């Protein structure tokens, strides 16, 4: 599309289109949701098939499943402490869902659902609701003391309380925008350089030689994007753990 018209169209890759024919269109099931379903299926398959052998000495798939389990468990226990273990399934689901969304999006023809602000904000909103409910359930009215740290001079209250409330409310925003922006930027860059390859490749005899430049950039970018995909999933999970720590311990 972009190459044929001779222009760079880096954003149409984020367009939602219904899949599964008329039924999918009727229930608004887009390719984004199809990838979510695929990611969920892959995550479940990884754990269920990986652990089906229940081997004491794990095979490849089982070590992958086990190391992802222990990685997230170490993250949650390290941040929240032992009482954070009951939040482990949630953080694990979140981490794997984001990680698989980021990684699947790097495959050709795939759609990156984490490049949609609505999706990342939806996940961040789940986290926000969870930490607020947990904090209220554990500490009741004392939770509101979180917005005014003990020992601070009282006359600072008019400044501290609004700042704390804004920073608390901005958590889901920063959480979602960070992931969304990283994924969009990476995919736009990939698309732009990929279009350069096609456009430059068409420039007569010298074209293919020049086109090697954006191609090599793209190869490096793919490696970089794999790193970003993992890193953003990790950041999402660890920030969630930190928020959970605040909710459980109130500082």
């Amino acid at each position, binding site marked *: 599309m972009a190459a044929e018209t001779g222009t760079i169209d880096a*954003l*149409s890759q*984020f*367009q*939602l*289109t*219904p899949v599964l024919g008329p039924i999918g269109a009727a*229930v*608004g*099931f*887009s390719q*984004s*949701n199809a990838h*979510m*379903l695929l990611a*969920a299926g892959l*995550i*479940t398959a990884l*754990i*269920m098939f990986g*652990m089906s052998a*229940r*081997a*004491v000495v794990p095979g490849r798939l*089982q070590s992958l*499943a*086990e190391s992802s*389990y*222990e990685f997230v468990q170490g993250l949650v226990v390290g941040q929240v402490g032992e009482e954070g273990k009951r939040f*482990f*399934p*949630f953080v*694990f*689901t979140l981490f*794997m*869902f984001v990680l698989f969304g980021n990684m699947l999006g790097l495959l050709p023809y795939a759609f990156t*659902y984490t*490049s*949609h*602000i*609505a*999706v990342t904000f*939806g*996940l961040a909103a*789940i986290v926000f609701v969870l930490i607020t409910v947990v904090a209220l359930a554990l500490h009741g009215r004392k939770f509101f003391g979180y917005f005014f740290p003990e020992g601070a001079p009282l006359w600072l209250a008019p400044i501290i309380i609004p700042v704390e409330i804004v920073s608390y409310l901005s958590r889901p925003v920063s959480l979602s925008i960070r992931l*969304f922006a990283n994924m*969009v930027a990476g995919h736009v860059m990939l698309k732009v350089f990929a279009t350069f390859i096609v456009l430059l490749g068409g420039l007569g005899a010298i074209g293919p030689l020049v086109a090697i430049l954006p191609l090599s950039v793209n190869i490096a970018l793919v490696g970089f994007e794999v790193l970003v995909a993992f890193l953003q999933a990790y950041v999402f999970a660890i920030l969630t753990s930190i928020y959970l720590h605040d909710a459980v311990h109130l500082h």
Partner: protein
Amino acid sequence: MPQLDFGNPLMIAQIVWLLIIFGVLYFVLSTYALPRVEEVLEDRRRRIEGDLEAAQAAKAEADAAIAAHREATSKARAEAQAAIAAAMQSAQAEATQRSEALAARLAEQITAAEARIAAARDSAMGALRQVSTETTEALLQRLTGQSDQAAVGAAVDRALAARGLG
């Protein structure tokens, strides 16, 4: 930017499906998948602990066996040394006894021999006086045709006393 096109009905549907899929995934993972992993990890941990304990027990057993062996060895060595010392002592005692007996017998023989020698000498000395007297008398008889028995006896006695044999 298609992501900010919130008028698109697919956008709302996407969020609804996200909540459904995420919820189902959470349910499946927390109910079926993750307990399975936990079980396997726990099983492995228990097994490793059990193996370590067994190894420690085996080590303790081996240590005890080595200690017992060492004790038995030192005991046997002490016994052997005691036996050697006793044997040497008895051998020494026997040797002393034997040599004492030998010395006593030798001393006895020496005494007997000395007595015999003294007797032989005495008898030889007694015979010497008679032989000397008779020889002197026979010489005097031949030379002078006469002999004074008493004078000859006195002269012989004198001569013997002079030589220290009388």
